[in-house]
C-alpha cells in the first residue's frame, strides 16, 4: 500500500517482525517544530531510503533513535524495547555511519576499529582479526596501520562502514554512506547492503542522491517539514506521482518545480547581466 499527502498513515508489510516502531513522535527546538508526529514501523530485512530536503527532520529522527537526542514526545521502540528507558543495551544491535563522517583521525585504522569494537564489547583480538579481514577485502590492507588522517575521503568512509559492521548489528543507520567512494567501491557497498538485507539486517539509508536511493531501497520514506509525506516502494510512488525518477517524485512532493528557472537565473548572474 502507498500513500501521498499528509497525515495518513499506512504501512508496507513485508515480513511480520517489527524492528523499529515510532509512534507519534514530535520534537521541537525552541519554538521550531522539527518533527510533527512521525509514525513509522519498520520490518526486519527492509532497506529503507530515508529522504527529504535539508531541515526536514531526517537526522533528528536518526539521532533520536541512537539516543543522542532527547526531549521528544511519543515513543520509539527498537527491537521491541522503548529506548527512553535509560538502558543503552539496545545500541549493541545498531551500526551507525554518521553523515559528518566524524572519526578520530589521529588513530590508525587498526586502533580505531579495535577501539570501536571494544565499545561494543568485542574482545580486542576478535575485533582486530575481523577488522583486518574486512580492510583487506576492501583493498585497505596496506594502510591498516597508518593514521586515518592520511586517508582519502573514500578510505575513511570504508573505515566508517567497517566500524559500523564489526559487531554484526541487526539494524544499520547509514547517513550518506557512499560519500567519497569511487565507482567500484560504490558497487561493492551496494551489493553488500543488498546481501545484508537478505541476511535479515534492516538498513535505514539516508541520502540526497536520489538515483542511489531509487536503486537500492525496497521502501522509500519521504520526509518534509517534519512529517512523513510519502511511504512506499519506488514503483508505487511512481504510479501515484506520474514521475519517472525519484528525483522527479521528490521535486513534485516537496513542491519544488522551478529548478530550470533558478538555474537560468544563476547563469545570468554569473555572466554578469545582473549587477
Amino acid at each position, binding site marked *: 500500500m502507498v500513500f501521498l499527502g499528509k497525515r495518513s498513515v499506512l504501512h508496507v508489510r513485508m515480513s511480520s517482525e517489527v524492528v523499529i516502531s515510532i509512534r507519534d513522535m514530535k520534537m521541537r527546538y525552541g519554538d521550531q517544530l522539527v518533527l510533527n508526529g512521525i509514525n513509522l514501523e519498520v520490518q526486519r530485512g527492509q532497506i529503507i531510503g530515508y529522504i527529504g530536503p535539508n531541515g526536514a527532520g531526517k537526522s533528528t529522527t536518526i539521532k533520536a533513535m541512537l539516543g543522542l537526542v532527547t526531549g521528544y514526545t511519543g515513543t520509539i521502540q527498537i527491537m521491541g524495547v522503548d529506548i527512553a528507558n535509560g538502558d*543503552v543495551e539496545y545500541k*549493541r544491535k545498531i551500526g551507525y555511519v554518521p553523515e559528518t563522517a566524524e572519526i578520530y583521525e589521529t588513530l590508525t585504522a587498526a*586502533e580505531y576499529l579495535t577501539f570501536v569494537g571494544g565499545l561494543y564489547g568485542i574482545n580486542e583480538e576478535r575485533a582486530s582479526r575481523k577488522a583486518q579481514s574486512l580492510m583487506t577485502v576492501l583493498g585497505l590492507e596496506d594502510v591498516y596501520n597508518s593514521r586515518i588522517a592520511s586517508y582519502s575521503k573514500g578510505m575513511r568512509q570504508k573505515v566508517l562502514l567497517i566500524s559500523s559492521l564489526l559487531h554484526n548489528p541487526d539494524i544499520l543507520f547509514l547517513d550518506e554512506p557512499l560519500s567519497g567512494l569511487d565507482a567500484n567501491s560504490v558497487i561493492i557497498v551496494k551489493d553488500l547492503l543488498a546481501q545484508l538485507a537478505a541476511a535479515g539486517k534492516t538498513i535505514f539509508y539516508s541520502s540526497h542522491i536520489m538515483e542511489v536511493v531509487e536503486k537500492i531501497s525496497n521502501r522509500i520514506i519521504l520526509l518534509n517539514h517534519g512529517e512523513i509525506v510519502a511511504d512506499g516502494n519506488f514503483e508505487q510512488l511512481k504510479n501515484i506521482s506520474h514521475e519517472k525518477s525519484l528525483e522527479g517524485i521528490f521535486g513534485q512532493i516537496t513542491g519544488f518545480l522551478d529548478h530550470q528557472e533558478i538555474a537560468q537565473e544563476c547563469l545570468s548572474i554569473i555572466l554578469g547581466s545582473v549587477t
Partner: protein
Amino acid sequence: MKDFISLRILDRFRTVFEAVGCDYPIMRKILQAKLTMDSRRVPTILSRNARRAPDRNGFLTSLWVYLFMGVILIPFVVMGRNYLFQMSVVFGILMFLVMTSMISDFSTVLLDIRDRIIIATKPVTGRTLGFARAIHVVIYLTLLTTVLAGPSLLAAFIAQGFWFGLTFALSLVWMDLLIMTVTTLLYLGILNFFDGERMKDFINYVQIGLSIAMVIGYQVIGRVFDVVKLRVVLRPAWWQAVIPPMWFGALFAELFGRQSSNLTMILLVLALFVPLALFFAYVRFMPAFETRLEKLSATTTHSPTTKHGWRRNLARLACRRRDERTMFEFASIMMGREREFKLKVYPSLGFAIAFPFILIFNPAWSQGLHSLGSSHWYLAIYMSSVMIPTVLMTLRYSGQYKAAWIYQVSPIEHLEDVFKGTVKAFVYQLFLPVYFIEGLVFTVLFGIRVIPDLTVALLSMLVYAVIAFRFLRKGLPFSEPFQLAQPSERIVGLILLALVGVMAGLQFLVTLMSGAIYWYMIFLVLANMIAWRIGFRVKGINAVRLGA
C-alpha cells in the same frame, strides 16, 4: 595502542569507579584512545613535507615551563609562620595557573561533541562517557599540579615537616577536585539556558571573563593583607569566604599556626566540604551534562544581517593595495568571530589593560596619587604591549585551518600583502582601541604633559609589532590547528618581552634630555615608515607553503 602509566595507576581505583556506576573496562578503552590521540600531533594539512613526529605529547613538553614557575612558590611555603597569608598566596597562584590552563586548554576536552557521535552512539552510558571525559582532564590536571606544586611541596616536607607536607599534598587533590567540578558545573549551568551558536558565544565570553577575573582576583589576594607595615595583618571580613584560596590558607592556619579564629574555622569548613558537595552534585548531574552537549551541535538557521561598512572603510584607510585590504577585512572578521581565537587572545587583551595599572598601583598607593604626576611611572604603559607577541603568534591558528587551501588556489601575487593586511587588522581592531583606553586613563592620572610621551610609546610599540612579526615563526594566517602549547614560542615570547624593557629604557633615557623626545618621535615615525614598508617581505615561506 600503548598501555599508559596513568591507566595502570587508574586500575587500582577500579572498584571506586564501579561503585559510582561506571563501566570501568569501557571507560579505560575510551581513555586509552584519547591518550593515544593526545600523544600525536595533528598533522598540518598545508605542510607538504609532513614530518613524521614521534609519539610525543605537546602538553608534556610545555610542563617544564610550569616547573620553573613552581620554583617561585618555594619561598612562600618555607619563609615564615604566617600560614594564613603564605598558603593563601600559594593556593591563589596555583589555582590561578591551574584554572586558566583548565579553561583555555581543556574546555575543548570537556565540551568535545565528536564524542557524542562516535562514542555515545555505542552501548556506552552517559555516566561512563562522562567519567572518561572527566578522568581525561584529571590526568592532565594532576600532571600539571604535580609539576607546579612539586617544588614547593618538597620544600614543605623538608622545612615544615611531614604533617604539613601531607596536608599540603591532600589540599592539592582537594583543590583539583574543586576546580574540575566548578568548571563542569558552570558549563552545565550555561548549557541549560542557551543552545547552538549563542551558547558557544556565551561559553566563550565566560571563559574570557573567568581568565580576566582570575588575574584581578590574584591582585585582590595581595590586597587582603596589609603588607605596608612589614607585619602582615589579616583584616577579617565576610567576603573573604568567597575567595577559595583563603579556605586552604585557613586550613594551615588552623592546623599549624596559632591563628585560630571564628573566621578561619568557617573558611576551614568551606575548604573541606565545598569540593565534596560539588563533587556529589557533579556525579549527580553528569548524565544530564552529556545530553545537554548535544545542543552544541544544533544548528541555528536565522541569520541577523551584519554591516561591514566600517570595516571596509577602515581597510581602505589602512591599506593601499587591494590584496592587503581583502586580507585586512577577512582577518578582522575572523578575529571578531572565531571563538577559539578569542579565547586564546582576549584574556591577553585584558592583561594588556590591567598590567600597566597593576604596575603603578604600588607607587600610587604608597606615595599618593598626586606623586604620579611628576614621576616616570607612565612608562608602565609599555606593559600593554604584552599582547602583541601573543596575538601575532595566535594569528596563524584557526579551528578551520583546513579552509586555508583557499590561499593555495587563489592568485595571490605577494605574500607580503597577506601578512601586512592581517597584522594591520590586528593593530587597528585590537591594539589601538586598548592603547587608547589605556592612554586616556594615563592622561587623567599623569596630566596632559605625558601626551608626547604616550605618543612616543605608541610609535615604539608599532615598530615593535613589526620586529615581533619578524622574530616569530611565520605561517599563513588561520592556517594551522590550535595546539595545546608551543614551548619554543614561549622562549621567543620572553625575549620579545625583554625587548619591551629595552624600549621603555630608551624612552626613559631620552626623557632625561630636554627636548630630545621630539627628535626621538621624528626618528620613530621614520622607523615606522621603513619597518611597515619592508618588514613584511617574506621570501622563504613562499616556496615552503605556497609552492607546488
